Every structure is written in structure tokens, then in C-alpha cells.
């Protein structure tokens, strides 16, 4: 019978993987303390995790989610057992409101004392009772200076017909509307239906010029030259710079989004003390600096700056220049007006 061969083949497959990962899933590893970190894919270096595991004699298991909404759905659906997670600022606000997040113990979080000045007081959590900012940055325009020869300084460049079919916008309704509203001199958190309607009209005018509404792969579009102007977060633009050195990044003079991904301990966590030690560890200057270098996002800990390589520190796509800060705005909950945004966004996409 050939069947023995097949069984053998399957066993081999299993052993191949198990051997390489020391068979983490095998039953019987429950004796050790385990910390569950629920985060974005590739958001933490494996060697940093290993160091924490060594120091505290624990095991850190990383699970990944792909969007803030997915994270919320998972937690609302009743998933328990995760200890630490990293929502973006607006999602952290929602999670705090819904009581999903545990209160932090400031005495454990010694590294939170040296946060960047503008991150000392988060609008939704002014005293860091629930959330500690981890990484932060801006939303602006990544452009190819070889094609866009006059450096743009306004959102208006995204309406320039010369770049028809060479423009990408984020596939994110609040961010897209935020950019237009800022270019109109309004707040990106406006609840005024007339303003939102006007913003939609401007976006409809722009639509024929837009190649793609992309949030995930605009760094690739930029680097390959498929687009020469991309509306997006700084980190991926910085990544595109590595492949195409003529890429530049600018936050238009009308201003843009200031964002921060925040570390929180979940209320359902069975190991809150260890979870807080983990957060404190991630904020340690050398750990934070290493993370900033790896992910190309700025660390929230000011004390990390001396350990960050100069090329990262001076790249405006990664570390926004401090003089930019007055022009930046946090995205906040717009309440009922979200429905107006929803409808306007749908109309834009359907058109």
C-alpha cells in the first residue's frame, strides 16, 4: 500500500515546521507565564521580544490584526486572553469609552515620563490613565521630485491635471476628507454638513485624476513610478525612498493629521502587572529607537532620540519637524456626523 508513504509525508511536513519553531503549539507549555501581545503585523522585532522574555522569564506570543476595526470587532466579539494591544489614537478613544481598557499604574511606567512634549497630553486621555503613545507621525504627500519638479507645499497639487492618473489617495474616508477639509481651511473634524458636502464636490472633481485609493501598497506605487504623488502616512513613503531616492515627503502648509498608535492593557488581561512591564520595556530608549529604525515611524519617547540614526531623525517622513506641530490636528470622534461622512464617501466611491 502507498498509504504508509503518505502518512510519512504528512508527519515529515509537521516535523519540519515544528522542529524549526520548537513546536510552540504542542500541549504542555502552559507551565510558563505567557504574555499575549495583539499587534499589527511586523510591529515588533523578534530580538526585542527575546530580550524581554529573557529578562522576565516569560514567553511572549504575538498575534496580529490588520485594521483598527478588526481589532475592535475581535474584542467586542468576546475574545479574551490578550494582554497588550496597539490601537491607533481614535480607536484607543473608542476602546476607552467602551470600557475595554484597563487603568495603567504610573509607577510601573517609568519610561512614560520622557514622552515627546506634544504627546504628554493626548486629547482623549490627557493624563495617560489608559493609553501610552508608542509610535507617531503625520499624514502628508509623498512625491517623486524627479517628476514633480517644483516641491509642492499645498494639498492643491493633488488637483493638478498635469499629474492625471499618477495620483494615489488613502483608502480611508476620514483621512481623505480630512485632507480636503484642511485645504479648504476647515477642521478635519468638522460636523458641518455643508462643509462635508463641499469637500465631496471637490473630491468628485479630483476623482478622474486619481489612479487608486490605496492604503496598503502606495509605497510600492510610488517606488515603481506608477504614481508620482501619494497621499499617505510618512512611514511607507520613507520605505519608498529606499527604492527610489528621488522620493520626498511634505506635510502641506494647510496642515494635516497627527496620529499616534497607543499601547493599552486590556481589561480582560489576566496578567496586567506583566503587561505594564512589557509596555514600559517597549518604551525603553534603545528598544524604542530600534523600533523606530525598523518600522520607519517616530517613537513617542523623546529619550529615544539620541539612539536613533541621524538619517532617520532628519527624515521628515519619519520624524516630523517640530515646527510643523502647530499645523497638525488629531482626528477625533465626530459622533453623529460620521453618517454624513459615510454617505459622502460612498457617493464618491460609487460615482
Amino acid at each position, binding site marked *: 500500500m502507498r498509504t504508509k508513504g503518505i502518512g510519512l509525508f504528512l508527519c515529515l511536513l509537521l516535523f519540519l*515546521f515544528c522542529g*524549526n519553531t520548537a513546536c510552540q503549539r504542542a500541549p504542555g507549555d502552559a507551565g510558563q507565564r505567557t504574555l*499575549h501581545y495583539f499587534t499589527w503585523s511586523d510591529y515588533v522585532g523578534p530580538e526585542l521580544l527575546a530580550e524581554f522574555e529573557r529578562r522576565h522569564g516569560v514567553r511572549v*506570543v*504575538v498575534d*496580529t490584526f490588520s485594521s483598527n476595526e478588526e481589532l475592535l470587532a475581535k474584542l467586542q466579539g*468576546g475574545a479574551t486572553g490578550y494582554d497588550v494591544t496597539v490601537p491607533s489614537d481614535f480607536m484607543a478613544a473608542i476602546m476607552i469609552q467602551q470600557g475595554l481598557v484597563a487603568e495603567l499604574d504610573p509607577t510601573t511606567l517609568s519610561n512614560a515620563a520622557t514622552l515627546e512634549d506634544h504627546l504628554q497630553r493626548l486629547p482623549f486621555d490627557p493624563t495617560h490613565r489608559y493609553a501610552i503613545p508608542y509610535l507617531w507621525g503625520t499624514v502628508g504627500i509623498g512625491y517623486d521630485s524627479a517628476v514633480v519638479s517644483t516641491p509642492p507645499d499645498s494639498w492643491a497639487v493633488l488637483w493638478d491635471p498635469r499629474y492625471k492618473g499618477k495620483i494615489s489617495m488613502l483608502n480611508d474616508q476620514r483621512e481623505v476628507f480630512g485632507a480636503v477639509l484642511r485645504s479648504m481651511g476647515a477642521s478635519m473634524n468638522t460636523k458641518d454638513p455643508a462643509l462635508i458636502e463641499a469637500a465631496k464636490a471637490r473630491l468628485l472633481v479630483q476623482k478622474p485624476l486619481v489612479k487608486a485609493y490605496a492604503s*496598503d*501598497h502606495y509605497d*510600492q506605487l510610488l517606488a515603481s513610478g506608477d504614481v508620482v504623488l501619494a497621499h499617505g502616512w510618512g512611514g511607507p513613503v520613507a520605505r519608498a525612498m529606499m527604492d527610489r531616492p528621488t522620493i520626498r515627503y511634505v506635510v502641506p502648509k494647510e496642515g494635516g493629521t497627527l496620529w499616534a498608535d497607543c499601547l493599552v492593557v486590556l481589561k480582560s488581561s489576566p496578567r496586567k502587572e506583566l503587561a505594564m512591564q512589557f509596555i514600559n520595556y517597549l518604551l525603553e530608549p534603545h528598544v524604542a529607537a530600534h523600533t523606530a529604525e525598523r518600522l520607519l515611524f517616530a517613537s513617542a519617547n523623546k529619550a529615544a532620540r539620541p539612539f536613533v540614526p541621524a538619517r532617520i531623525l532628519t527624515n521628515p517622513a519619519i520624524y516630523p519637524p517640530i515646527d510643523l506641530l502647530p499645523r497638525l490636528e488629531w482626528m477625533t470622534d465626530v459622533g453623529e456626523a460620521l453618517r454624513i461622512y459615510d454617505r459622502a464617501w460612498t457617493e464618491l466611491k460609487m460615482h
Partner: protein
Amino acid sequence: MKQAGGWLWRLSLANLLFLYGPIAVLILFSFNASRLSATWQGWSLHWYRALWADQSLLAAAANSLWVATVSTILALLLGVGLAVGLEGVPGRRQRQIEQAMLIPLVIPEVMMGVSLLLFFVLLHISLSLTTVMIGHALFNVPVVMIIVRARIRKLDPRLLEVAADLGASYWDALRYVTIPLLRPAILGAGLMAFTISLDDFIVTFFTAGPGATTLPLKVYSMIKSGMSPEINALSALFVVVSMGLIGLSLFLQRR
């Protein structure tokens, strides 16, 4: 006549191209030296090496294999038992039960995922790798049942009568006659169930708890932090393994 043949031939070719073209491109670009999926910069095995060094991916792969193995065994135990047991149920009832068992195959997977999630939450079972295994076993039971039932229908009922005449008890007949005759179908069904479990995203998405990130979940979240050819390499391996298992399964069922 000849012309019609040529036309059909071309249509079939187009069909195959439609089915396998995207997969071929995916595999081709997993050997791309460039990080960008749009530009070709020559052959390289770099992404396969990166894959092998990525601990989080390998942990996800181990999760996937572990889930697939356990859920397949569960589905085989339940599915084969069901298929054999149904033989003893009279005509109309048999058909009704058979049809009722097909429900997990026809209801949208999202609904199955949500209902499983609600079910686990209601019973205060915390989500983990175990809940994923249970979920996978659920949709694999009907798969196993259908394949094994098809084989049972082809068996000669007189074989069992002969066994009984020669003094075999029900269990003896099952063990020495029925199961050996069903073996190719059971193995084929097992491989099919294994493959489906390995590839599943939706039910896994809803039932996965801490420490239960499987490969498809991992790939999905990787897309967010930038498409890299590592994903291509991983998907290429997945396609090859899945196709190999399906091929093996079909081969076994034909014997």
C-alpha cells in the same frame, strides 16, 4: 467538425489561463530580486530564505499544521462514523439526515463563523487554538461524509452478508471488511479535509483567540504592513502543498 474542435480547444485554453494565470504570476514574482511587485529585477531565492528565517511566520505555519491535523482527525472520526452508521438507517430518514448534514457546506462561511463565535462566547469558552480546531472540524465533517458515502454506495452489500454468514459480528465485519474497503476514500477525504482546513480564513478569523494566528490570518495582516514578495513566496509554497494534497486525495479516491 475540425473547426468546432479547434474552437473548443481554444476556449479550454483560455479557461485554464484564467484559472492559473494569476497563480503563475504570483509564483513567478516570488523569485523576483526586487522588493517591488511591479518591476522585475532578475531571479533570486532571497524571499524564500527570508521566509525560513521569519519566526512569526513559522509559528503561524506550525499553528496551521497543528489545527489541520487535529481537525482532520476529528472530522474523520465523526464523518466516517456518520457515513457508515447511515447505512443502517432506512431509506427516507437516511436521505433527510444526509441532506441536513450538508448545511455547513451551503450556508455562507461568514454566517458559520459568526454563529460559532456567538456559540463559544455564550458557553464562556475562551477563544483559542482549540476553538479553531472545533470550527474546522465542523465544516469538514460533511466533506468527509460525502466522499465516504459515495464509496459506500459502490460497495457490494453481499460482502457484508457473506461476512455475517461466516460468523463475523457487526464490529468484526466493520473492522475486517468495510473499513479496509473504504480506506482509499477515507484517506482521500482526510487529505481533502486537511487542505480545506489549511486554507481556511473566514471561520478561523472568527474563532481564533490568543496564540492562534494561522498562516492565512498572518498573510492577511502582513498585507497591511506593505506587500512584500515574502508573501508571494509563502503563497507559492501554500499553492504547491495544497495542490499536491488535493492531487493525492483525488488519486486515492479513484483507486
